C-alpha cells in the first residue's frame, strides 16, 4: 500500500518509470555490445537449457542464449519504437501546428487527411502489406508504415491546441514583434505543447513496439531480426508455452509488459508534472 501511495506523487511515478525505461535502454543499448556471440546464430549453445549461471535465462530450442537474444530484441524493438515515435511525433506536431496556425485550405486538407487516416484501421492494411510483400517487409518498412498511420494522432491534438493558441494574445504580441510564422510556431507555440508531445512520443513508442510485435506474433514481420515480437513468434513456433519453457516465451512478454509500464509511468508522470507546473505558474 505504501508503494501505491507513492504513485500519486508525480515525481515518484516518473522516477519509477524512468528507472524501468533506463533499465531497458541499458539492457537494449549497451549490453548487446557485450554479447559473447551473435545470439541470432543457432547452436552457439546447447539447446533447451534451464536458467543457470552460464545462461541466465536459459537457451532456446535453437541453441540461442535467451538473455543475449533478449538484449538484441530489446535493442531492435526500442530502436524501431523510438524512430517511429520520433518521426510520427515530428511530422504530427509540425503538420498539426501548421494546420492549426495557418488555417484555410491547408488546414482543411490536412484535417481531412488526419481524419481519413484515423478512420482507416491500420492493422488490416499492415497485414495486407506484410502478406503481399512477404518476408520483404523488413523492419524499416514496418517503421515507415507505422509512421504513416501514427502521425495523425499528435497532429489532430496539436492542431486543436494550435487553434486555441492562435487566439492567445502572446501570439499576437509575437506577430507585432515582427516574428515570422515559423518562429511563432517554433519559439512561441511549441513550448506549450512540448510536454504533451513528450507524452505522445512515449505513447507512440508503445504503439510502434506493440504493432510490430503483433505483426511478428502472427508471423508477418521480419522473423530474422531479433525483436520482442519475433522472439515470441519463434518461441510459439517451437511451442515453448506448451512445452513449459516459460522463460523463453515469458522473457520477451515480461519485457514488453514492463517496458510498457515503464514508458506509461513516464508519460503519465510527465503529464502530471506538467499539469502541476501549469497550476503553479
Amino acid at each position, binding site marked *: *500500500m505504501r508503494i*501505491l*501511495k507513492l*504513485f*500519486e506523487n508525480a515525481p515518484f511515478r516518473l522516477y519509477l518509470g524512468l528507472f524501468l525505461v533506463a533499465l531497458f535502454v541499458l539492457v537494449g543499448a549497451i549490453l548487446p555490445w557485450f554479447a559473447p556471440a551473435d545470439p541470432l546464430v543457432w547452436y552457439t549453445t546447447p539447446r533447451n537449457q534451464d536458467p543457470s549461471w552460464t545462461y541466465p535465462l536459459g537457451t532456446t530450442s535453437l541453441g540461442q542464449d535467451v538473455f543475449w537474444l533478449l538484449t538484441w530484441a530489446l535493442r531492435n524493438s526500442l530502436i524501431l519504437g523510438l524512430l517511429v515515435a520520433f518521426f510520427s511525433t515530428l511530422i504530427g506536431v509540425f503538420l498539426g501546428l501548421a494546420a492549426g496556425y495557418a488555417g484555410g485550405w491547408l488546414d482543411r486538407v490536412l484535417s*481531412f487527411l488526419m*481524419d*481519413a487516416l*484515423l*478512420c*482507416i*484501421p*491500420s*492493422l*488490416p*492494411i499492415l*497485414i*495486407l*502489406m*506484410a*502478406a*503481399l*510483400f*512477404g518476408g*520483404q517487409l523488413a523492419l524499416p518498412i514496418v517503421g515507415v508504415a507505422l509512421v504513416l498511420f501514427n502521425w495523425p*494522432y499528435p497532429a489532430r491534438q496539436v492542431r486543436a491546441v494550435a487553434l486555441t493558441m492562435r487566439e492567445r494574445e502572446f501570439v499576437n504580441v509575437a506577430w507585432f514583434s515582427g516574428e515570422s510564422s515559423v518562429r511563432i510556431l517554433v519559439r512561441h507555440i511549441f513550448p506549450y505543447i512540448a510536454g504533451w508531445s513528450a507524452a505522445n512520443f512515449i505513447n507512440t513508442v*508503445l504503439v510502434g513496439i*506493440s*504493432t510490430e*510485435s*503483433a505483426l511478428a*506474433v*502472427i508471423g*508477418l514481420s521480419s522473423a530474422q531480426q531479433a525483436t520482442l515480437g519475433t522472439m*515470441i513468434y519463434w518461441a*510459439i513456433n517451437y511451442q515453448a*508455452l506448451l512445452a513449459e519453457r516459460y522463460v523463453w516465451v515469458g522473457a520477451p*512478454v515480461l519485457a*514488453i*509488459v514492463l517496458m*510498457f*509500464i515503464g*514508458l*506509461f*509511468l513516464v508519460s*503519465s508522470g510527465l503529464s502530471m508534472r506538467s499539469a502541476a507546473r501549469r497550476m503553479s505558474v
Partner: protein
Amino acid sequence: MRLLRYIAGRLVVYALVVVFGLTVLFFVPRLGPTDPIEAMLAKVASQGAYMDASQVDALRQSLADTFGLSGSLLEQYWAFIKRILLTGDFGPSLSMYPTPVMELIMNALPWTFGLLLTSTLIAWVLGNFVGLLSGWKPESSSSRVMEGVAICLYPIPYYILALVLSILFSYIWQIFPLTTTIRGAPWSWNLVTSILWNSFLPGASIVIVVFGWWVISVKAQTTALKEEEFVRYARLKGLGDGRILARYVLPNAILPQITFLALQIGLMFNGSLITEILFDYPGLGLLIYTAVLQGDFNLLMGTISLSVIAVATATMVIDLIYPLIDPRIRHR
C-alpha cells in the same frame, strides 16, 4: 435546415474518407508481388491433383477470365470503386470461388460486430465506473489497487493476453472451449448462451485491455472535474458525495469519453483482429487473415474495404450522435 446542412457536410467528409481509404486499398495490393492467379494455381497443385503443363496453362487462362483481373489499372480502379460504392459487390471470393465475398463478410460481420460492441460496452461501463471512483477518491486503497491493475493491464498487448487467457482457461482449467462451436436452433436460448460462451475469452481479452485504458482516462477526467467550479459549488451547497458524483461528475466525465470512443474505434478494431486470429473466432479478422494466407484478392479487398467503411461509419455515427447528447451543442 441547419441540422441538415451539418449532416450533409459530415456525410461529404465521410464519403471522401471512404473513397480515400478504398483508393489506398486498391493500389497497395497491386504494388505487391503476389499474382493471385499463380497463387491459385499453386494451391491447386499443392493439393496434389496431377496436371500436365498444357492443362496448367489452360487453367491459368480460365482463371484470369473468371477473376476479371484483366484491363488497365485505371479501368480496374474505376470498376472497383464503382462496384463497391454503387452495388456493394466485391465479386466472388477467389479462394472460395464462387462464393460471393459479400456473403462471407456478412457471415463474419455479426461476430466481429457483436464481439466489439459488447466488449467495448462492458469495458466502457466498467472502466468508467472504476475510473470515476478512483478519480473521486484517489487516496482510498481500493482505488489505488484498481488503478495499479489498470496500469498493469493497459499496456499488455492483446495477443499476449489472448494467449495467456486461452492457456489458463481453455487448458489448465478447462472452463471455456478451445474453439468456437456454436450450436442451437436459430434464435434459441441455447444459441445465445452458446455464442456468449464461445465469445467469452476473446471478449475478455479485449475488455481487460480496453478497461485499463478507460480507467486511466476517466480517472484523469474525474480528477480534473473535481477541481471544476461547479463541483466545488455543488459541494458548498452541502450536497452529499454520492449525489455530486452521480449528477455532477459522472455525466461530465462520461461525455468526453464518447469522442474518445470515436478516436479509439480504429484502434479497438485492430485489437479485435489480432484477438480473432488468436482465438480462431469466426469474425472479420479471421476472414482477413484467411484471405491473406490464401492470397485471395477479392476477399482481402472486400474485408478490408468493409473494415474501413465500418470504422469510418462508426466514427461518423458517433460524431453525429454527440451533438444530440451534449446540451451545450444541442441547444444553442
